[in-house]
């Protein structure tokens, strides 16, 4: 083995990354499970209930981490897409494709829990709040990337087209957010506003951070599982993939 092939860049090759991802999955899956259990315990039992909102506010411990992850994963996806376009590493585009469904899932989760939270708090399932609306647009952007990649048969073109769309989206997300925010303040004036808790207790903050970390670990697991499937599907004609299948059967 040359020194070049032993450096970490060799994992940019799908054939090398496939077993590595397989070995890494447990290292993220176990923390994800443990952190979810700890986070949920903190959120549902350890943290005191809010004096105004009662226990209903506890959905925040799912809602806020899901919303954070939905935005973060879009950025990560765009970075991988950019790498795939500029450096032309196939694995980067595969990672972008693998992250998209998880990101869309968290966006949907954030919208859904937001709606469940809004019902007892504001008395309505949906408010055209700036954050809700831009989260909805974010979901559309995720679905656009997924749909475009699914519609193109040639994987190389699908990767690059999806990459361009992800990058256009990531530039647009802040513009959309501020547009919706100004539109919202123009329209809604004195009606219901997303009232953030004035001071968040330390234990509440910890519970949110633990849940966020749990979601993050979960995203690693699903992305790795999915990217392994994508690698295997695309490299099915390669010798190493054939050998893998032969060994398994």
């Amino acid at each position: 083995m040359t020194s070049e092939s032993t450096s970490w860049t060799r994992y940019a090759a799908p054939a090398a990354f496939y077993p590595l991802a397989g070995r890494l999955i447990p290292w993220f899956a176990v923390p994800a499970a443990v952190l979810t259990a700890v986070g949920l315990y903190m959120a549902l039992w350890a943290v005191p209930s809010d004096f105004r909102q009662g226990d209903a506010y506890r959905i925040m411990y799912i809602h806020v981490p899901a919303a954070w992850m939905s935005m973060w994963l879009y950025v990560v996806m765009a970075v991988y897409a950019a790498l795939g376009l500029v450096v032309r590493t196939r694995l980067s585009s595969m990672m972008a494709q693998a992250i998209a469904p998880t990101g869309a899932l968290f966006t949907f989760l954030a919208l859904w829990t937001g709606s469940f939270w809004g019902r007892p708090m504001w008395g309505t399932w949906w408010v055209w709040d700036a954050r809700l609306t831009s989260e909805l647009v974010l979901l559309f952007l995720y679905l656009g990337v997924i749909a475009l990649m699914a519609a193109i048969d040639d994987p190389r073109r699908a990767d690059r087209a999806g990459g361009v769309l992800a990058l256009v989206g990531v530039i647009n997300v802040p513009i959309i957010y501020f547009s919706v925010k100004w539109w919202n303040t123009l329209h809604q004036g004195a009606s219901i506003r997303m009232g953030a808790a004035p001071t968040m207790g330390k234990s509440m903050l910890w519970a949110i951070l633990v849940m966020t970390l749990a979601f993050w670990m979960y995203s690693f697991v699903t992305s790795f599982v999915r990217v392994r499937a994508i690698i295997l599907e695309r490299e099915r004609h390669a010798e190493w993939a054939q050998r893998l299948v032969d060994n398994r059967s």
Partner: protein
Amino acid sequence: MTGPLQAVGWVVRRDLTLALRRRADVLTSLFFFVIVVSLFPLGVGPEMATLRTMGPGVVWVAALLASMLSLGRLFALDYLDGTLEQMLVAPYPLALLVLGKVGAHWLASGLPLVLIAPFLGLQFGLAASSLKVLMAALLLGTPTLSLLGAIGAALTLGLRGGGVLLALLVLPLYVPVLIFGAGAVESHAAGLGAQGHLSLLAAFLVLAAVFTPWATAVALRISLD
């Protein structure tokens, strides 16, 4: 050899000539615009007070849909007859040629929407001064729609189900233009003045004119690879 600007001029003239020869295509999306706007009063009832508050938004949403529908034609015919490949190998920056094509496309399909919008505004009982603001907002906003839509049109070139996919890709990107376009008229009607909204629309147009032709050129190269 002709200069790049001259080449852009040729692209614009060629596309405009083609649009004039196929007048039915242009008129179809214009009538679509008119019909969609006219359906709304039938759906929500003829109370003028309701219609007046809805008017700008309805006209804008219909303009969004109409300009999206016409996007399919932006590159499709040139793609089929091989002109697009010639543009890719031409000794001019592709982004510049794209800008020319989008400009011609806007002249053929965007400008008619702007010109007919005041008549539709009358159906919704908008005041004369509101109609002026509506036209100004459309004049600044519809080119941005064409520029943004060109990226989607380039990405979905030659795909099955391209039309519906195009809507999914492009409509979320239209959100800021819709907000400030419709907002301009509403804010004018509320006596707040439309200056801020129109300035933002102009800013979007400048940003889009600088960056989107480049992204569209990249997308075209990917689709024709």
